[in-house]
């Protein structure tokens, strides 16, 4: 009985926390769509390198809506799961898949070299590109996307990363559209990606 009550409290706390996060996102969406440039805007200019070592910037993504996810290759669970889910969703998009760009940005630039990211991404859909850079460049893009990340030392002198776990969906004008949360249901995620692809400018 006590156990059940504790779980209810934990669940309620979780729901409350989620509601706050959702409100923040709704606010961000509103601000983004209205074209305000304020604290709540998501996205911005960046300079990084891709997983083949080529320099890239926000201009590289311009013209197509995109899905952008922040993680790291030393991540044992959330990142491979998310990239695996994204791989499945891209497959379900069929020909629409090409209307979007997909980017995995590392929050661990010290270990995630272009070469390592390239090898890592070979296990996922070929549309997904990896971006890395200097710690300062990563801090800048993470700041622009309101991505939280933090290095947490482990007892063996190594470290793991805390990081935001959602995929941001951005339109072709680099404005924030919505997010796909960790382990979101396939149908919901695919319909968000489809909606994003339908906004792609036809050339």
């Amino acid at each position, binding site marked *: 009985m006590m156990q059940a009550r504790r779980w209810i409290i934990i669940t309620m706390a979780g729901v409350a*926390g*989620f509601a*706050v*996060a959702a409100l923040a996102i709704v606010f961000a969406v509103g601000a983004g769509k209205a074209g305000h440039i304020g604290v709540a805007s998501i996205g911005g200019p960046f300079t990084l390198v891709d997983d083949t070592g080529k320099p890239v910037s926000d201009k590289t993504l311009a013209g197509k809506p995109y899905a952008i996810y922040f993680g790291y*290759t*030393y*991540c*044992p*669970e*959330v990142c*491979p*799961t998310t*990239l*695996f*889910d994204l791989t*499945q969703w891209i497959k379900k998009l069929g020909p629409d898949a090409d209307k979007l760009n997909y980017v995995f940005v590392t929050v661990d630039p010290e*270990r995630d070299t272009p070469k*390592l990211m390239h*090898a*890592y*991404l*070979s*296990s*996922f859909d070929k549309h997904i590109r990896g971006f890395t850079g200097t710690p300062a460049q990563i801090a800048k893009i993470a700041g622009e996307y309101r991505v*939280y990340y933090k290095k*947490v030392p*482990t*007892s*063996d002198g*190594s470290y*793991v*990363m*805390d*990081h*935001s*776990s*959602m995929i941001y969906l951005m339109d072709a004008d680099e404005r924030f559209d919505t997010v796909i*949360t*960790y*382990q979101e*249901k*396939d149908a919901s995620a695919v319909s968000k990606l489809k909606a994003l692809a339908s906004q792609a400018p036809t050339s």
Partner: protein
Amino acid sequence: MRILAKLVFIAALVAAVPAAFAQGGGNSKIDVEKPWARATPAGAMSGAAYMTLANKTATEDRLTGASSNVAAKVQVHEMKVVNGVMQMREVAGGLVIPANGSVTLKPGSYHVMLMGLKKPLVAGQSLALTLTFAKAGNISITVPIEALGGGSGNGGMGGMGGMGGMQHDQPGGMGKMEMK
């Protein structure tokens, strides 16, 4: 005498049944049930193993550490997503397995984290893992490796078929056929 022999036989049979489902041997104080590890993407340096640990004794035990020949370091971690932020922490003081109770290590929760992988974890293969408990001591188990999508809320339903051709980058095989 005959009856006693029969009883012993039946007792042995009964004892053998749980042993077939759980690793750790008949005399172990901890049963390790349904262990599995997730296949890792190419180049990945970390992996995770999951299982249920059942304490068959009336005293609490703790999983204090682990080791494997496939990883430089193995730790017990807890993963949580708090307000959209993924957090991972080493379980301080060991993972408590309550008396006559069990703890399930699963995605989104506790896991045995394999750090500094010496080679990728390939679906269909298995790895050796030794778990160290405060009271039960060392228990060595064999952990089957499941496809990358295994066990996750979404892809896991598809089971082994999920990854299709993607897991088939067998090292060695094709490389040796290279023409001069």
